């Protein structure tokens, strides 16, 4: 955490970046330099640091950033983080879903006949918690690349993944069977910054809420 009065803001790269910068502009933080400079990561003048969305909770928890913006999907996958979740920013809408190949549900058959369904995902904790909560035995297979490939090759019967439009699923002949939750961008804060920089954080919160 910087000891100056201004906030350090962790901004996610990728799908949430444009929406995030638009809102920062709207509350009076000039993000032109961030938009035009793709390689630079740290913009000290406006207190912005950019990173992968899944790294935002890491930086905010440690106090390396005072506040940050990331998806609810990331926060759900990292439930042990000691951070404040302050505001649902209502953009970056997507859904965490369970999908299988089209036709008869192969995961239901696997559960019935083999007692366990195999599920590929990048969201290990999210998926494990979901199957525990819904009383099903699942073998979770963690993959790093395209999850859609796993059920097509017979590696698994189902996938748990994030989808915005469902286009990639449809192109791979996959259908959505269940929705785990809807995800949007969230404003999070470091617990110490939330107390020591209360005025600055509340001001940012009010401005974002008013958009």
């Amino acid at each position, binding site marked *: *955490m910087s000891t100056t009065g201004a906030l350090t803001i962790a901004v996610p790269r990728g799908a949430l970046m444009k929406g995030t910068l638009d809102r920062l502009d709207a509350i009076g933080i000039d993000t032109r330099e961030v938009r035009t400079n793709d390689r630079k990561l740290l913009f000290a003048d406006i207190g912005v640091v950019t990173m992968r969305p899944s790294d935002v909770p890491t930086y905010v928890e*440690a106090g390396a950033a005072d506040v940050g913006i990331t998806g609810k999907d990331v926060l759900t996958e990292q439930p042990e983080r000691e951070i404040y979740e302050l505001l649902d920013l209502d953009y970056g809408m997507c859904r965490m879903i369970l999908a299988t190949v089209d036709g008869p549900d192969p995961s239901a058959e696997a559960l019935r006949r083999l007692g366990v369904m195999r599920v590929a995902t990048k969201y290990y904790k999210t998926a494990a918690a979901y199957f525990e909560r819904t009383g099903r035995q699942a073998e979770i297979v963690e993959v790093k690349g395209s999850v859609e490939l796993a059920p097509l090759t017979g590696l698994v019967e189902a996938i748990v993944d994030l989808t915005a439009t469902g286009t990639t699923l449809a192109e791979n002949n996959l259908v959505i069977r269940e929705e785990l939750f809807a995800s949007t961008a969230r404003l999070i804060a470091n617990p110490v910054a939330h107390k020591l920089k209360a005025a600055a954080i509340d001001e940012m919160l009010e401005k974002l809420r008013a958009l």
Partner: protein
Amino acid sequence: MRPQIHPIPSGTRDVLPDEMRELRDITEAIRAVFELDGYGEVWTPALEYEEVLGRGGGAPPAYRVFDDHGEVLALRTDMTVPIARLVATRYQSAEPPLKFCYFAHAYRGVRPHRGQMREFLQAGIELVGAPAPHGTAEALSVACHALDAVGLRDYRIGLGDASLYPTLLRSLGIAQQAGKALMDALVARDFVALQHELGKLGLGDADTELLLRVPQVRGGPEVLADAEGPVAGAVAGLRGVYDRLAPEVAQRVIFDLGLIRKMGYYTGAVFDVYDPALGAPLGGGGRYDDLLGRFGRPLPAVGFALTIDRLHIALTGEEKAAALAREPAVDAFGGVQS
């Protein structure tokens, strides 16, 4: 020859002489303060019967073993519960107030990260038989004296009340189960979930607004000014504590009406210690007026613990920040500004 690697358990670590000297400076400075303020140092066993720890209601133990009689033993998760046991058994008829301090390791099943090991050294006090508000004020003062002695300059103390939100829920007639969902959201520090859960209750706009706003109130004594209705009692209690603080202690206090500490035994005022040089609290404490009663010696009590590793990190962080401030050309990111 290839070096042999003998691992140690996750979340534990070795301390070598250079670091140890610095840690000793910290603990000796704190020990002198506790001694001066009349707190006698105690040791208790690191292993206790699991049943004894469970009776206290602290953090659940992470490490358990069977002894040779088949009894379940557990490594303590804090010193508050062992000292409550000690007071109830070894000081059955002693005249309160009783003042103890400790420098001891505690053990929790946390995810290890900076300043958070599974085995960690705490320095703290327990002040038994001194009710609110003066007992609380004394504990806060001792905490500040200790932090001053360590050499920290920029620390602050967040002060709240564990009974505030439950009282608010009861006074608005919110059912136990719905109340638990709200408390869970607060404990998870998730105001989005809190708003969502409140939306399900079908309360009036004013009540919903109150339940959402109160836990986000934090700042100087001015934030207590407009507290009325069901929160008035807890707020009057906090003001009672504040009015008893010496100016140099009072100036460290930030009121925080949403402050929740995870241990289940807190009944009244609770506090956390913050420093801008570390992203997590350095320690904290509060009132546990029911805990001694669970061990058969009902006495009001208050205490706090500071995590030595975190004090050390904050101290080095403050030193770095001070060095940076002496060179105004370098900004907080370490980059040179034009």
